[in-house]
């Protein structure tokens, strides 16, 4: 990821340099301003502005009706959002950390995901569950889980994981406007990385994007693994190998078309994700590529993922996290003698 210098506000074009945290804050503010039915709530999102300051200043600007603290009970946060969405609001719920969302799991799986189907579309739930996810921040146990597999496995959920401030801004706004519930996974390690954000640009949920062109192999990444993929491609380029990078962006529904086309253009693929690899999003991506692009492949699809262990304590997490070397080792194994 390119870390840009802070620029002064460029009001005319709507382009500014923002951290991902600031971009998310801006997206919430812009949707609160655009739609009176948007409400933001969770634990510590009011006066404190959220433990990551994503909701900073929203209560002061929009009032306690629009952005408010609730008792610390995640099932009720998500369940009341269901009721609010049934009654015409567009709730945006903050789960403070990935693992703190687990008490809400029954509500997510049994109701959030199923209400539209259950009622033959009579009730759709336009709600967003924001989840700061994944590690790399020196967090203690229960603060660094990559929990995406639980959600992408559940039909009826739309799961988004941005990797840049621009995508964080545009996709969160889209998620709030979306007719169905969205699990919005925010890579907390990237909260403070800056990038240019055009607040006038719109985007579409459900679309992956080729973010670096390359001809020799394709790296498929999302969330926290995107900067690793980009750095690996940069390093490989210096060594004379041209790696293409695809950012999945929306994990479910998954954009087969873009990713298939990318992999077919290079004939080799490495999937990178921080979650344990067994029965994971990375496994699904690898399986889909193998099934749909087999005739184009020069080598088996490789996965670079976390180990199948509980997330590591802060002083050991560097052993756990996929890094550039592991990605390049995987690339090196892609049958280059063929």
């Amino acid at each position, binding site marked *: 990821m390119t870390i840009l210098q802070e620029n002064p506000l460029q009001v005319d074009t709507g382009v500014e340099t923002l951290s991902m945290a600031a971009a998310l804050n801006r997206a919430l503010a812009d949707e609160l301003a655009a739609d009176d039915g948007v*409400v933001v709530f969770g634990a510590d999102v009011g006066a404190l502005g959220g433990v990551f300051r994503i909701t900073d200043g929203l209560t002061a600007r929009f009032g306690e*009706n629009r952005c408010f603290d*609730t*008792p610390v*009970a995640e*099932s*009720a946060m998500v*369940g*009341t*959002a*269901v*009721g*609010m*969405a*049934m*009654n*015409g*609001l567009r*709730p945006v719920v903050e789960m403070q950390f990935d693992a703190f969302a687990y*008490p809400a799991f*029954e*509500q997510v799986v*049994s*109701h959030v995901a*199923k*209400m*539209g*189907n*259950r*009622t*033959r*579309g*009579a*009730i*759709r739930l336009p709600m967003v569950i924001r989840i700061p996810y994944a590690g790399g921040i020196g967090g203690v146990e229960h603060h660094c889980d990559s929990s995406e597999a639980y959600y992408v496995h559940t*039909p*009826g959920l*739309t799961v988004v994981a941005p990797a840049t401030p621009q995508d964080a801004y545009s996709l969160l706004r889209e998620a709030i406007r979306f*007719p*169905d519930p969205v699990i919005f996974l925010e890579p907390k390690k990237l909260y403070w990385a800056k990038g240019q954000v055009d607040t006038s640009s719109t985007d579409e949920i*459900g679309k992956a994007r080729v973010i670096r062109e390359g001809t020799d192999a394709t790296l498929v990444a999302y969330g926290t693994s995107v900067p690793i993929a980009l750095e690996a491609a940069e390093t490989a380029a210096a060594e004379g190998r041209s790696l293409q990078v695809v950012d999945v962006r929306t994990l479910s*529904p*998954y954009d*087969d*078309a873009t990713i298939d086309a990318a992999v077919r253009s290079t004939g080799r693929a490495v999937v990178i994700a921080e979650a344990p690899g067994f029965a994971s999003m990375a496994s699904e991506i690898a399986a889909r590529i193998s099934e749909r692009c087999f005739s184009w492949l020069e080598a088996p699809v490789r996965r670079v993922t976390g180990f199948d262990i509980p997330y590591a304590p802060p002083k050991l997490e560097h052993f756990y996290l996929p890094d550039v070397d592991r990605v390049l080792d995987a690339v090196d194994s892609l049958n280059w003698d063929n």
Partner: protein
Amino acid sequence: MSFSQLVPRNAPVQLINADGKANSDDSYATASPAALAEGYRSLVVSRRVNDQCNALARQGRLAVYPSSHGQEACQVAAVSVLDDGDWLFPTYRDSVAVMLRGVAPADALTQMRGDWHCGYDPSEFRVAPQSTPLATQLIHAVGFAHAAVFKGEPTVVMALCGDGATSEGDFHEAMNFAAVFHLPVVFFVQNNRFAISVPFAKQSAAESLAHKAAGYGMPGEQVDGNDLAALLAVLGTAVKRARAGEGPTLVEAHTYRMQAHTNADDDTRYRDSEEVQEWVARDPLARLRKYLRSKNALDDEKETVFAAEAEEIAATLREALNTDIRPDAGELFRHVYATSTPQLDEQWGSLRGELERSEDGAQS
């Protein structure tokens, strides 16, 4: 309100006893005999619907039926106290209440019949889908009420659950949120003494669930769940409080599940028939009938009319459920998302191909 005002009475409110005699009460008024006669009419219809549904389940026309036989007064009262614009959040055992809200009986039974999960448009009848996971719907009710207050609408939300559901964490979270945000919700627990096979004594060490209310900072009340007059008075008061902006109330009705959990259950494995007989003596229909007869508000002619009406609804149910339906496999894919996905289109295409090939095979 002070803590002492939140605490319910030590005994359930009862306005008409099991012998059909009136009790005087300082706080709660008994509805007029004419109004109670209308309630009795609903009880008669509700009982007939329960028994017809049990029969249809035995015949395989319903996949399953959790009967509210014995709890009809709770079903009728929960709906009677609501305005048209209010919302009901029912459980799987509250099919009768769903019908009393105006949902066509066959549509209310869609889930039990097995041709879809929810067979009615919740917004049309202001009835949420019947919830199968315990207590989860209580939280939806709280969120729904929160949105109503946010929009400045006078909606009151009636949230139903059973005694088993009060052990769930979601029960606690719903009560707490409703109290903290001071929301217009009436939590109505039908304590029917059993969660499938587990008796209430193993569900809670407390004598009364209604007393939990005070711990959340809301008033609670216990009521005889087989006394329609008392239920109407207590629930009516709670609805009035909610509509006046005075916040939520927890009402516990002491009643009894007179039949097995569902047709798939065998209640002789976990309770004595003597216990069931004790509750038959407290039947909600019998006592109200006696009371209304003593007040000259019910005569043979009226009873004949009510019975005929109940038979008509039972016949409608039989006719609707004895008609074979042809399930639409495409519907399995149609409602998962507002806009379908390429993956679901592909999967439905694959299933459709299978179905077309098997039809072709059957024809050749």
